[in-house]
């Protein structure tokens, strides 16, 4: 308005004009928004992404049967996280419903991780639906335990986690872990999945 001299045509091209054309911008933004809303899965994911699982050929795609639930036990190997730090090898991480628990089990005779894992699994067992196993007559939970161990996790950690899951070990303050005394019914989980990747890549 202050310049005054120019004609109507010139004014439309000027960027300092009051009315910026926002329509293409909004179009773009809506498209992007729609894309992310449709393609993205908001993962309340129990899987921590930086673990490199070992390669295998016979594995199949994950699926959980109806009425069964899944608990994922992440175990770190020699992995760098996306934020750049390296959690200690053999760290156990359990994630569910927005919370995450992490325990270390590295080092000689460090059994804290297994003890805490068992405590957590006891609660999972108590809450889970059960079925009667025809062969052993035991009540078993309808829970698939998925061990998502890094390829470089030490084998002994996976071994111990299996023992903890079947509830065949107990904790002795003096001796650490030892075989469970045969009293009371064990709170065992027997169906276990191991997460792996395909050697030839996706497809």
């Amino acid at each position, binding site marked *: 308005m202050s310049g005054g001299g120019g004609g109507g045509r010139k004014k439309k091209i000027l960027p300092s004009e009051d009315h910026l054309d926002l329509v293409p911008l909004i179009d773009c933004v809506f498209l992007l928004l729609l894309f*992310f809303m449709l393609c993205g899965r908001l993962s309340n994911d129990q899987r921590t992404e930086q673990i490199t699982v070992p390669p295998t*050929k016979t594995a199949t795609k994950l699926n959980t049967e109806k009425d069964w639930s899944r608990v994922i036990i992440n175990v770190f190997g020699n992995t760098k996280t996306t934020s750049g730090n390296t959690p200690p090898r053999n760290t156990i991480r359990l994630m569910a419903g927005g919370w995450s628990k992490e325990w270390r089990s590295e080092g000689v005779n460090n059994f804290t991780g297994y003890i805490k894992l068992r405590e957590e699994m006891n609660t999972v067992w108590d809450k889970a639906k059960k079925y009667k196993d025809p062969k052993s007559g035991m009540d078993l939970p309808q829970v698939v335990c998925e061990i998502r*161990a890094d*390829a*470089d996790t030490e084998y002994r*950690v996976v071994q111990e986690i299996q023992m903890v899951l079947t509830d065949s070990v107990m904790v002795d303050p003096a001796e650490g872990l030892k075989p469970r005394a045969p009293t009371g019914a064990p709170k065992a989980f027997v169906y276990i999945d191991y997460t*792996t990747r395909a050697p030839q*890549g996706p497809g």
Partner: protein
Amino acid sequence: MASMNDDPGDGNLDLVPMIDCIMLLLLFFMMTTKFTPEEKSIANILPTDKGLVATQPSKVTPPQQVNILIYPAGFQRGFGERDYVNQLGALIKQSPNAIIQEAEIRVGNRPETLKIDVKILRQTPGPTLTKHVAEIHQFISQQLGPYEKGGADRKGQDPIVIQCFSSLSWQFALIAYDAVRSYEGGLSGIKPPFTPEKLLNMREVTFSPPRIRNYSEKELGGELFEILHSK
């Protein structure tokens, strides 16, 4: 100005709050979205301590099983655990978190062994990795052949136990399990995914329970001695 903004009949709609909102939503989805590749899994059923109960006492027969033995490569066979403690010392002392790079795999008391290389297994998917995995699969199926019990169905075959040295990377044990699965799958015709019902009708394949819990050099040497001399 205030009257201009409040008036809905005005030609100029105030787009700023809407764009603010949309940008926020966009930013939220961009930051929280994860495009995860589908992962695969391999299933197993663990025995429990009340497993199969024999209905009547049967003849006592020594348990027959086929061991798949996995241990660090390059060990000289010794006469006792001390020989292994010395050899292990060098390997472990490098660093407590050192990853053992090469392992050897053997089935029962067969003389043949195969070397497995961590460096190849760690590679991103590709032909080298596929080839190495195929080699391991082929080796296991060749070695398991002589242990077939004629006349028995798959479930009646001797159970397979994977005995892996406890300080090795977990992928060695899993790749052996995978190879056995592939061998059994081929012979039984049962196709994945393996549900609990299917697994109960297949040959029993398990990972061995821990042999030691105190990971001192002496105990590790003892474990290695046991694994190397198993049949």
